[in-house]
């Protein structure tokens, strides 16, 4: 799968609204940008300053969201658990909006506030869901729906208050937009994606046991509370960094882990890293469609992930 991801990165960087010579581009990519291989300065810049960073961002965002989704689904033993359904993404979006409105020029405030927003949303969901009998998966999902709708209203409220000139760019961002692959945020997003996937993979054994039920997992020596906190923290970080970089790219956290489980079984030691790679692959392909299908205009990548994701999901459900 890692090979497939690498292949996708190379192949998709050959596609774009501006045609580039294939052989020279491949040669330049193979040299990691040390050799222009006959590309003009503009072509070289398009490949290495615009296209490649965007593809890497797509990979980081896709990997992050799918990993977070896989983590939630294992922890909550609920196939519908997903950053969006639990309101985590909306929390991150509100955090990013605050950063954009109040600290527009300072980029690094975005992932920090997005992470804070995601974490606060997670805590809110968790507190809401915690009844006398503990937090059952059903209550968690219900609480997630409530937090999601509440934060959606906050987002709408802020957008209405914002001046008209910024609304358009904002709505585009809300639907998921990878065109702003910023040089400062990109490395952060990539590092968090990889670290997050590793952290959750290290807890995969505990998550496997948790899938038997919290009681049984506890009896088998799993520190349920600690695992829960780790998953919530890591997933908030993953969702926060990807929303800050690209807005809300939907469906990835739901579709990709499902695909991974359907094809590879439900051992989290395999499905979590598989979801991370698959998510990266999925968003890279979706974004390539988004930036080429009506070139030189662009679509929000979130529209494409939903467009591909929903029918694929239905097909898989019917077949399974």
């Amino acid at each position, binding site marked *: 799968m890692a090979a497939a991801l690498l292949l996708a990165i190379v192949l998709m960087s050959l596609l*774009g*609204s*501006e045609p580039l010579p294939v052989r020279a581009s491949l040669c330049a990519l193979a040299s990691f940008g040390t050799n222009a291989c006959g590309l003009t*300065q*503009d072509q070289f*810049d*398009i490949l290495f*300053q*615009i*296209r490649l960073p*965007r593809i890497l961002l797509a990979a980081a965002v896709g990997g992050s969201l799918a990993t977070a989704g896989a983590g939630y689904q294992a922890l909550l033993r609920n196939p519908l658990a997903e950053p969006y359904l639990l309101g985590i993404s909306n929390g991150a979006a509100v955090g990013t909006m605050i950063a954009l409105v109040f600290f527009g020029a300072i980029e690094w405030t975005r992932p920090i506030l997005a992470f804070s927003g995601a974490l606060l949303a997670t805590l809110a969901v968790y507190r809401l869901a915690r009844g006398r009998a503990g937090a059952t998966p059903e209550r968690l999902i219900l609480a997630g729906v409530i937090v999601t709708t509440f934060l959606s209203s906050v987002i709408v409220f802020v957008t*209405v208050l914002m*001046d*008209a*000139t*910024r*609304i*358009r*760019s904002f709505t*585009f*961002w809300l639907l998921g*937009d990878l*065109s*702003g692959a*910023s*040089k400062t945020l990109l490395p952060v997003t990539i590092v968090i994606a990889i670290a997050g996937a590793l952290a959750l993979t290290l807890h995969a054994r505990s998550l496997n046991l948790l899938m038997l039920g919290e009681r049984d997992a506890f009896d088998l020596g799993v520190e349920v509370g600690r695992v829960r906190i780790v998953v919530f923290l890591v997933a908030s970080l993953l969702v926060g960094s990807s929303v800050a970089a690209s807005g809300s790219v939907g469906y990835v956290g739901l579709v990709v882990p499902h695909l991974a489980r359907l094809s590879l079984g439900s051992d989290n030691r395999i499905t979590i890293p598989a979801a991370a790679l698959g998510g990266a692959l999925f968003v890279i392909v979706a974004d390539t469609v988004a*930036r080429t299908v009506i*070139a*030189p*205009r*662009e*679509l929000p990548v979130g529209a494409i992930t939903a467009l591909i994701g929903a029918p694929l999901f239905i097909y898989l459900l019917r077949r399974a």
Partner: protein
Amino acid sequence: MIYYGRSVRARGYYCLSALGLIICLMLVSACTPREAANQGATREITDDLGRRVSIPAKVDRVISLAPNLTEIVFAVGAGDRLVGRTSYCDYPPEAKAIPVVSDTLHPNLERIIALKPQVVLVSTASQLEVFTQQLKGQNIAAFVTDPHDLEGVFRSIDQIGEIVGEKDKANVLVQKLRERTNAVEQAVRDKQPVKVFYQASGEPLYTAGHDSYITDLMRRAGGASVTADVPGAWPKFSNESALAARPEAIILPTGGSMGAANANVAEALRQSPAVLQGRVYKINDDHLSRPGPRLVDGLEEMARALHPDAFGT
């Protein structure tokens, strides 16, 4: 499953029936024929959506739902007939004294009806299909403008002049604007058109496409928009295509209503010939984003920026 007790359920039924009653009353009142606001002699004027809008013979109560339309109403000398505006309508300064009926995108129908206008001027920018239908139901004429070039803006001025009964003043205004436009076009006539990129917003990158009046404006100012053939009016534009277009000049609408927003060239264009040669021009966005009389100010500023030698400066 959650089970609701008997008393809770009973209360629920009460609430439901009360709600039902309210809805019924609302429906009844909505269907009662209203006293027609527009009575007597009318005339028909075709708006930019091709609809024949029936306008009362004498109009003295107008609401404008876009800043450019407010500017036009004042410019044809009918500011005293304007009874409602949007929160964006801040020019001329006198406009600020007029009641606000919310912003361009979310007009408040109740407040509009309460102000008893005969005509509501709408810009397509506000995508108000449903809204114009509702106004029609209230017997209020909704006149929609959608200019795609400078001629279209002149047409808006003429039509609004006709609506408010200031046809002569509108004609004089358009005449003056045409003279200024001609002067600009004369001055740049023999100049080599400059390849221009219009950065409507940098992050994400938006520009002016084929259907935007800005594309026409740039041509008249002695420029050639590198995005003139991109479909739509305000397309979201590909960063790499912007880089590949190699514009010789970049126009940044900023500093007006936008404040400090859009004051920097998008990252993809930082190495463009325009930036390297210092040909990035900031123009007050209120002169470019409002297709009204001040668009000609924008035209003059753009032409002076692109061809300073043609104006002896």
